[in-house]
């Protein structure tokens, strides 16, 4: 289907346009830092777009993999002398392998049981990161050494803006491409009916595992980027609340949609920044906003916007 192909490329091109424009417009380091966070969390959320939106499996422990990636960026260079820029790849490999090993038994569970199992997994990772003080620096977290390329230390906010933006674009392009492949179609069949999918000859448990590993790798790379760009990691990044935030980002924007993942991340990264003026009421307002959005737009922002434009143009 050639028109779908061009659709895909158009989306990525449009996204690239936005990213480049923002890179030019944003006035100072503060805004660049915020935008960088949006791209990084969007990358992690894209993994959930595949897992929740396409394959229909839920994970409440995604921040665990975010933590693995972040601590890979912190631990490997300081303790093993690995070059910092190699750490996202090693972290992704570790996360993927972990997801592969744990995923097989866990993914046999369904619905709420799968939710509690993934939640437990994330929780365990978070506990290890908090308690193994000798390795991870404990609850206080640890420093991440800055990568040095050709004698230049990568610490400028603008540098990390472009690195995270490029990673997001590549990630988004891969997810969009997945849509048209056999695996992508198998994911969707799985979401619509597991029994139906297995009757069609789809290896259900293998497909679930594939989506789970992919989501773990996305979260892990995002975690590494987070650690490298912040120069610092803490166990909070692997906490249950962080996992909840990631799922909320995905569902808030629209679980099936790549643009939704980015929009959802933007909302949840920007909201606390805006709400800091309300000081004590920050948590309260955040909760209220999440509830209100989910009640009135249960399938997320992007599908609601698409509906609206369809109705207007008809």
């Amino acid at each position, binding site marked *: 289907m050639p028109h779908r192909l061009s659709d895909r490329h158009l989306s990525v091109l449009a996204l690239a346009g936005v990213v480049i424009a923002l890179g030019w417009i944003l006035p100072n380091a503060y805004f660049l830092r915020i935008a960088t966070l949006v791209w990084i969390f969007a990358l992690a959320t894209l993994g959930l777009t595949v897992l929740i939106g396409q394959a229909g499996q839920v994970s409440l422990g995604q921040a665990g993999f975010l933590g693995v990636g972040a601590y890979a960026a912190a631990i490997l260079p300081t303790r093993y002398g690995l070059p910092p820029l190699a750490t996202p790849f090693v972290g992704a490999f570790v996360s993927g392998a972990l997801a592969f090993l744990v995923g097989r038994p866990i993914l046999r569970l369904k619905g709420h049981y799968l939710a*509690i*199992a993934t939640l*437990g997994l994330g929780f365990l990772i978070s506990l290890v990161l908090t308690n193994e003080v000798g390795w991870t620096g404990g609850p206080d977290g640890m420093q991440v050494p800055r990568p040095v390329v050709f004698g230049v230390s990568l610490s400028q906010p603008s540098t990390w803006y472009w690195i995270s933006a490029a990673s997001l674009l590549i990630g988004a392009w891969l997810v969009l491409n997945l849509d048209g492949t056999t695996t992508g179609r198998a994911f969707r069949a799985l979401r619509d009916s597991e029994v139906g999918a297995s009757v069609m000859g789809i290896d259900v448990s293998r497909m679930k595992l594939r989506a789970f590993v992919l989501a773990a790798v996305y979260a892990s790379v995002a975690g590494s980027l987070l650690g490298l760009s912040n120069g610092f990691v803490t166990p909070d990044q692997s906490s249950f609340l962080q996992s909840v935030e990631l799922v909320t980002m995905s*569902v808030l924007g629209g*679980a099936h949609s790549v643009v939704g993942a980015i929009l959802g991340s933007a909302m949840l990264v920007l909201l606390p920044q805006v709400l800091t003026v309300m000081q*004590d009421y920050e948590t*309260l307002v955040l909760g209220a906003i999440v*509830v209100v959005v989910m009640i009135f737009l249960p399938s997320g922002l992007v599908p609601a916007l698409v509906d609206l434009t369809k109705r207007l143009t008809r």
Partner: protein
Amino acid sequence: MAELLQYIATGITIGSVYALVALGFTLIYNCSGIVNFAQGEFVMIGGMVTVALTAYGLPLEAAAVGAVGVSIVVGIAIYILAVAPAGRASPVTVIIITIGVSIFLRGAAQVLFGKQFHGVKPFLSEQPVMILGAAVQSQAFLVIGGTAAASLLFWILLERTLIGKALMATAANRLAAQLVGINLRRVMLIAFGGSAAIGAIAGILVTPITLTSYDVGTMLALKGFAAAMLGGMGSPLGAMAGGLLLGLAEALSAGYLSSAYKDAIAFLATFAVLLLAPNGLLGRRSVNRV
């Protein structure tokens, strides 16, 4: 021996709280299919309101009744304002709504009560009771007794009253229940109110032992959820068993293995059980209609 007894006493006490939270989960889940992640906040509200009301000079009994009342109002408000308007949204959406509610309640508690820990004096005496060399706080007996009483009441409500029959009918088949004239909205209100009351009772009883703060709800919700899963979602008996088992596993592993990893062992136990019995210990085997 004394050591073991001590751990078991601690385990049963904290396990009772998990059991009550799990029971609250079960009540709402059975009637609506919703996992209410704000369940832990009821425990927080129970403790916090008791602390606040006694600080205003109210006697403990009145404060406790007030706390249960406030919690029931919040529970009913959650249903009317947040859950009912969502209608037939997907389970993930509803989970996120209840998580949003719990964030909201935590934020409200932070504004109203501040971020510090609050406590109330033990209800009976501050002297621990010695049993075979193990020192057990008198409050622990109240927690265990209260849990037993609350679950007995719960059982009588479910099995021996018309309201209970309506709840059970809704749990078994929502459409059929509506067809025989059960008012679904009223059933839901009772489920949310009852669940809030159970959580608040747990909070009131345990606050003298564990203290309370605006953010205790999250962890309790997680543990209660794990307990409900461990026992088998939807089974009240399973919820009780799961809660007590989780409490015991936690206390024993904190005592003999490592206190830093006690939470890990609770979750590992849940993992192991779920892998062997994917529907929990006492859960109904699920049959999927194709």
